[in-house]
Structure formats: structure tokens, C-alpha cells
């Protein structure tokens, strides 16, 4: 196995390589940016139409009251978990291979949360009354219903979003100072000057910085676990067969980490290619990432099987019927596609030859996320088609173009945010890569003269 990173990259070279990614975008950048904005346009158009006409245009109906919006909401919340995994959990575990790739993963966290939040709004029948969900003092002393998992959701997501923005920003301060020192004039200079908060790199600043960063990392981990557990509670707390499952919270968290890791692989390959980050986003790092993804995929598969087994061997006949309906009913093709993309396809990642094969990994990572998206949809749609009450049975419902338009547009929104981020902020952490290079070269210098690989 090769080295995660070369030890002899000069620090100035690191600055140069990363800062280059901030410079004048090529024509392709503008083309993709335009496509992303056009996609957002589709979503905005659909939402305006839905807002004006009513939720009926999304083709939901009285037994299928939730649809793609909620499914895609869970999907985006799930995507956000990988950033925390890479930056906070691996930071605490001193896995230094995360250093060149955690910045964009963290940005992904923030932006997918910002996308997920929009789905809550789009889903509401009376969007203009959304502030009722927030506890604000009012003369009637009317509060939200604190028993409702949706209110927990609101708190969990707001907390997670603000903390992950903070974490992203705090971790970027030394890099912003590098940007400030290397850019001579213009709006960027002003932006970096303000945002770097007068960072000079003194010992005291570094010490405070380390403590702050570690504290936020420790704070963020339980938050990340709880946020998706709470999203899972939306389902597990209800009495719907197929949702009323005790193992939902860990199942959701595993699914979240899974889709997040797959998304990191996708973005890793794109950034490596576009910004020519071959020196930093190296194949050995990719290999570790792929192995991590494989492990999480197996955890997810295991939890999935547990869910099926507990339903199958449980005494809840309705839940069992529901499971059979999923596997054999009108939604069966999607159900089996989910099993294939989520559990069978990742087995490929166990083979060494695929672990560094970028074109294959690119396709596979996207397909894994397709599988994870299907998983969320398979939680929503079939459950409404086969609930407790026979009146709802066998009324399958398929989303309208309005729903698809908004889901489609959300990917444009995410792309737009991510692309703007990549050009305004360094997407590879310069100071941490330097640290990594330095530690590796120290280790090389003090390598004991004994034979054997360690």
C-alpha cells in the first residue's frame, strides 16, 4: 500500500496548489453553475405553482399524505452525517488520513442540511404559518406541541446546522488567514480579512484554536447521532406498521453515514479531477475511505436484516403484511433495487482491485446513493399503501412532476452552494495537510532501524 501523502511536499507548494483552486474558474465551471441554477429554477417554478394552487398538485392524497419531500428530506439529512464522521469522529481517533478530505465533507454537511431544511418548508400545507412550530413568546401563550417528533426535528436540525456551520468556520480560520496573506486586493481580501478574525498564528492562538476545535468536535458527535435518531423518531414514534420499529434510530444513523460516505467518494473524485488535487486526495486515502464505506454498508445491511427479522418473527401481523406488500406489491421493483444497490453492490468494494479504480468507484458511489434514496422512499410510500386500516390498502400513489421537479432542483441547489464554496473557500485544509506532511516526515526521520513493516 502506498503512502497517504508524500512527505516531501513543500509547504509553499501546498499553499500554491490549494490557492490555485480559488482562482479564475474555467468555462466548464460556469456551464455547470448555469445548469445548477436552471435546476433550481425548475424547483422554484414547481414550488410557486404548488404554493399558489395547493398541495394537491404534488399528487399526494388522503392516505398518502407524505411523499417524496419527506423521503428526500431524510436523504439530505443523511448526507450531512459523513462530514461530522470524517471531521469530528476521525479527528478524535487521530486518523490523520482524513486531513486532506475533511473540509469538503464538512461543507457537504452544511449544504445538505441547508437543502434538507427546504424540504420541510416545501412539505408544509401552509408554509406561510411555519413559524408556529417555533417556540416564541406570544400574548396568547400558545406553544408548539413539545410531544411531537416534528418539533424535536426542528430543534435538532437547527442545532445541528448552526453547530456544523460553526465547526466548518472555526476549522477554516488558519486557512482563511493564509488566503488573506496571499491575496492582494479586491473583495476577497476584505472577506478573508474579516473572516480570519486577525489570525496571526501565535502559540496562544493555536492553543485556543485547538481547544475550541476539539470542544466543538466533541459536541458535534452526539448531536449528529441524535439528529438522525430524531428523524427516525418521526417514524418510530408513530403507530404505522412498517414505521413502528424500535431499531429505526440506529438504522437511520447507519444509513446516513452510508450515503454520506458514498457522497464523499463521489465528490472526492470530482475535486481530485477538477482541481488536480492528486497530491492530496491520493489513492491510499481513497482506499481507506472505500473500506470505511464498505464497513458502514455492511452495518446498514445488518440493521436492515434485523428490521426484517424482527418484523417477520414478531407477532404484529399488520407489520408483517406490510413487509410482504413491500417485497411483492407495486413497489417491489424499487424495494429490490434498494436491496441490490444498498447491500449487494457494495460487496464489490471488498475487492482490492476496485478500491482504487476511480471510474468504477465514481459510478458505484452514485448508485449507492440511489439505493439509499430508494430506501427512504421505500419507508414512505409503501407504508401508506398498506396501513392498519383496509380502506388504505392497495391505493398506490406515484409522485407528480411537481414533486420530481422540486427533488431534482434540490440537487441543483446543493451543487450551486458547493461550487460557490469551492471557489470562495479552500476546499482542502492547508494547515492540516502541512501538519500531516510534517508528522509523516518526522516519523520517517525517527524510523527505528529494524526490519519488517510496522
Amino acid at each position, binding site marked *: 500500500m502506498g503512502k497517504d501523502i508524500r512527505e516531501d511536499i513543500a509547504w509553499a507548494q501546498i499553499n500554491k496548489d490549494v490557492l490555485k483552486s480559488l482562482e479564475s474558474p474555467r468555462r466548464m465551471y460556469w456551464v455547470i453553475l448555469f445548469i445548477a441554477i436552471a435546476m433550481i429554477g425548475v424547483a422554484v417554478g414547481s414550488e410557486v405553482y404548488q404554493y399558489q394552487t*395547493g398541495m*394537491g398538485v404534488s399528487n399526494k392524497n388522503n392516505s398518502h399524505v407524505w411523499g417524496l419531500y419527506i423521503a428526500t428530506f431524510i436523504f439530505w439529512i443523511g448526507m450531512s452525517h459523513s462530514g461530522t464522521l470524517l471531521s469530528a469522529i476521525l479527528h478524535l481517533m487521530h486518523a490523520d488520513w482524513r486531513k486532506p478530505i475533511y473540509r469538503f465533507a464538512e461543507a457537504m454537511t452544511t449544504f445538505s442540511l441547508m437543502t434538507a431544511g427546504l424540504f420541510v418548508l416545501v412539505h408544509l*400545507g*401552509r408554509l406561510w404559518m411555519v413559524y408556529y412550530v417555533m417556540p416564541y413568546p406570544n400574548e396568547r*401563550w400558545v406553544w408548539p406541541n413539545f410531544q411531537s417528533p416534528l418539533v424535536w426535528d426542528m430543534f435538532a436540525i437547527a442545532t445541528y446546522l448552526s453547530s456544523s456551520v460553526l465547526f466548518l468556520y472555526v476549522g477554516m480560520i488558519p486557512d482563511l488567514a493564509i488566503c488573506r496573506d496571499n491575496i492582494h486586493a479586491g473583495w476577497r481580501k476584505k472577506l478573508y480579512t474579516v473572516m480570519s478574525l486577525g489570525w496571526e498564528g501565535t502559540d496562544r492562538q493555536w492553543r485556543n484554536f485547538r481547544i475550541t476545535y476539539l470542544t466543538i468536535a466533541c459536541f458535534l458527535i452526539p448531536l449528529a447521532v441524535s439528529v438522525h435518531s430524531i428523524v427516525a423518531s418521526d417514524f418510530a414514534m*408513530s403507530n404505522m406498521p412498517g414505521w413502528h420499529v424500535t431499531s429505526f434510530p440506529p438504522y437511520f444513523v447507519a444509513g446516513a453515514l452510508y450515503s454520506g460516505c458514498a457522497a464523499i467518494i463521489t465528490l472526492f473524485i470530482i475535486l481530485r479531477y477538477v482541481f488536480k488535487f492528486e497530491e492530496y486526495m491520493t489513492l491510499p486515502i481513497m482506499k481507506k475511505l472505500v473500506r470505511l464505506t464498505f464497513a458502514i454498508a455492511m452495518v446498514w445491511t445488518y440493521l436492515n436484516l434485523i428490521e426484517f427479522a424482527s418484523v417477520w418473527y414478531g407477532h404484529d401481523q399488520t407489520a408483517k403484511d406490510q413487509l410482504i406488500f413491500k417485497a411483492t406489491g407495486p413497489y417491489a421493483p424499487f424495494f429490490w433495487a434498494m436491496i441490490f444497490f444498498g447491500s449487494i453492490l457494495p460487496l464489490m468494494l471488498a475487492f482490492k482491485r476496485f478500491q482504487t479504480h476511480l471510474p468504477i468507484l465514481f459510478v458505484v458511489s452514485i448508485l449507492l446513493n440511489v439505493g439509499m434514496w430508494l430506501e427512504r422512499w421505500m419507508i414512505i410510500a409503501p407504508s401508506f399503501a398498506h396501513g392498519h386500516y383496509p380502506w388504505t390498502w392497495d391505493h398506490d400513489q406515484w409522485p407528480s412532476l411537481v414533486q420530481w421537479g422540486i427533488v431534482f432542483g434540490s440537487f441543483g441547489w446543493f451543487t450551486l452552494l458547493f461550487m460557490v464554496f469551492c471557489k470562495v473557500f479552500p476546499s482542502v485544509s492547508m494547515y492540516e495537510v502541512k501538519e500531516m506532511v510534517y508528522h509523516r516526515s518526522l516519523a520517517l526521520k525517527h524510523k527505528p532501524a529494524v526490519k519488517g513493516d510496522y
Partner: protein
Amino acid sequence: MSITNLLENWSDFRQQHPSDDRPHREYKWAMSIDLDSCTGCNACSVACYAENNLPVVGKEKFAHGHSHHWIRIERYWDNDGREFADQGAQFLPMLCQHCESAPCETVCPVGATNHTADGLNSQVYNRCVGSRYCNANCPYKARYFNWYDYPTTDNVWPEPMNQQLNPDVTVRGKGVMEKCTFCVQRLTVAKSNARSAGRSVLDGEVQTACQQVCPTGAISFGNLVDPLAKVGKQWMTQQVELNKDKQAKNAEEKAVKLRGYRILEELRTYPSVMYLEQLRESAI
């Protein structure tokens, strides 16, 4: 619900069940529906449309599942091998069961659906944000969402049809959830009349719209607290108790003779609507 109120009356809030430690004092509205009398004529549904300003959405939207029948007649075909015309069927009018421990109430993020002191499951249209969680969690699927803005955009009540709208009932706009209210507007009037007369509402003094029109008198409605009420007597003779998820009579031999049951009782929703099983020739 102010903080001081919360702290001072903590014992009122820390209950497991609305019904467990807060018995209904004056009123507990309940219903019983005799399926043996029900002919499936749909008059109840029509009366409900007229009384409660339900939008008539039209064929196409009805097929899409956008209908608003607060009380709906469900038809279940017999599965005994006989073909249509000879094939038997059963009817079941389904409406909001006004559960004493309603799954919809706990999940509403804004508290738009609540339990009243009279044992009604109320829906506050002005507070509803349209998250539709209540419908997702309702095992009976007795809640209906306003998928379109019927009063204005869909021309459901064109001039002079709007003249027949019931002035006692709000016309709901798009994006709110609605459901059977047990004709709360009639209950309010009856209660206020009774209060002026210094008494409680008498049995039969107030009828729901569906009960009023039922040609076979299959629906009885009244106050369960009132020992003289017909509905209370029915519940008692059928040995159906309100705050039970399993009726004691079902364990006994004589259960076969009693027809009263509640739907999906085992989910611990404690519904306020009791059904009386239909007697079938096949069962005799």
C-alpha cells in the same frame, strides 16, 4: 399555557392518559353505530357535506383521493365465491373515532388538534400548518386534507350555491387538515341553551347531522356521562368500556351474544365510537 400555569398545575399535565386521571365531568360525547341497521345508503355522508360545508371535489379529484367525506361508507365484499348480484357485502360508516387517547393529538407539531373537556378530538384550523403528521398517525385514516383552495380557486360553491353554506361552520382554505367534529357547532348551541336553562343537555336534545338523516336510525349519539342516554345504555348493554384496550367481555363465553366492538381497539386509542356487528345469515 404559561410557565406559572405549567408549574402550579403540574399534576394536570403529568398524566399518562387524558382519560386516566381526568374523568369527564359533565359531558363525554360518544356514538354507537348499528351495522345491522345500516343499509349503506350514504345519506349520512350527504348530510355531512351539507352541514359541515364540505367541498364537493368532483369525479376526477375524488378518484385521486382528494375527497372530503368526513363520514364515508366503506363497502366490504364477501369472499365466499359468489359472484356479483348474489355476492353479499357489508357496510361500515367510518368517521373520526374521537379517540380518548388519540394518536393524532400527540404528533401535531403545533398542537392544532386537541382533546376537549367534553371528550371531543378538536381541530383548530387557524393553528394548523399542514404537516399532515396527524393523518399519517391516524390508524383509521379519518382525517382529510385540503389539497386545493376549494372555496376560491376551485369554484366548488359557485353563486348562488354559496348561499347554502352553513354559517355556523368555517369554510376551510387550502393546506389545513379537517375531520369529523361530531357537529361541534350543534353541541355548542345545545350546551349554551342548556346552561341558560340551568341544566345539562338532555338526551336527544342534540343530534349530529348524520344521525338526523339516517333512515334506519343506525346511528345514536349522546352523552356517555348521562345515565339516561341511549348511547350510554347501548355501551353498557354491550359491555364496552371506554378506557380499555381489551374488553373484559371478550374473554368470556357470552361474548358471542354481544355485538358491540370498537375498531382497532388494541392500538390503545380508546375510540368513542362503538359499532354493533352485523348479523349475517352465514353466522346463524
